[in-house]
């Protein structure tokens, strides 16, 4: 009984995530796209919770739905939420759709392959519930994955310096060459 309820919740949240992602790309105004993207990220955080990844769910809400989307909304407020006009004459949309349908078919075919030589770890659901998700991830991150963690901190520092360079020094307007 509990199993059926769990499966139902997973199915509903997953389908809501797909619908919200469709909303991101069909809305004409970027502000609605941003709101749909927040909905999509919340659905993904719920799925992470349902898949026993509590720490990743919290990070998803704080970093993505919090920080990144606030940044997006500030930029939209700064640049103005203008609706984009679409030209239906170009071949861009049919080409993109045919490519994506092909890609989706390939991904579905790749799903049917099944597991190829999986490597099982020792972190079962019971073990993680015993020690806690954040603690288990912290121990793994600071022991086996220490160098990627330090490289990520260096990456954030480089990004900070880069955006200060981009934002601080004013650029002169580009003059079009007439020919």
């Amino acid at each position, binding site marked *: 009984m509990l199993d059926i309820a769990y499966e139902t919740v*997973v199915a509903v949240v*997953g*389908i809501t995530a*797909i619908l919200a*992602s469709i909303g*991101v*790309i069909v809305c004409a105004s*970027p502000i609605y*796209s941003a709101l749909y*993207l927040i909905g*999509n990220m919340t659905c993904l955080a719920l*799925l*992470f919770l349902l*898949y026993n*990844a509590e*720490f*990743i769910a919290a*990070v*998803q809400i704080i*970093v*993505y739905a919090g*920080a*990144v989307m606030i*940044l*997006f909304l500030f*930029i*939209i407020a*700064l*640049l103005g939420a203008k609706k*984009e006009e*679409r030209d239906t004459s170009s071949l*861009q*949309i049919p*080409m*993109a759709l045919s*490519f*994506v349908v092909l890609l*989706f078919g390939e*991904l579905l075919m790749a*799903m049917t392959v099944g597991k190829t030589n999986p*490597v099982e*770890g*020792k*972190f079962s*659901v019971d073990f*993680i519930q015993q020690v806690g998700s954040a603690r288990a991830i912290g121990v*793994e*991150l600071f022991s086996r*994955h220490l160098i990627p*963690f330090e490289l*990520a901190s260096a*990456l954030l520092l480089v*990004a900070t310096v*880069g*955006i200060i360079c*981009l*934002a601080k020094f004013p*650029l*002169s307007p*580009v003059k079009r060459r007439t020919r």
Partner: protein
Amino acid sequence: MGTDFILFVSASVFCIGATGFMIRKNPLVMFMSVELMLNSVNLLLVGFSKELNSLDGQIFALLIMTVAAAEVVVGLAIILTIFRTRHDLDVDNINTLKG
């Protein structure tokens, strides 16, 4: 159901994100589509992490979130700089580097 459903959701969100990146002309919405694709990969990693009783997938997801945050910040700064110099946000019109 189980992992197959997560694979389906992840593939669908990835394909929708790819579509949005190719058919939209507003760079902000294109960036949001890239975020969709990165998020779908996170979902896949967490699903397999539970399936295989391993935490490596969750740590990968954490690092992907770091890279995505840095990428969004730099990308939005570039969009802002383009808007300050050109006052136009259509990616089809940004062709100054064309020879």
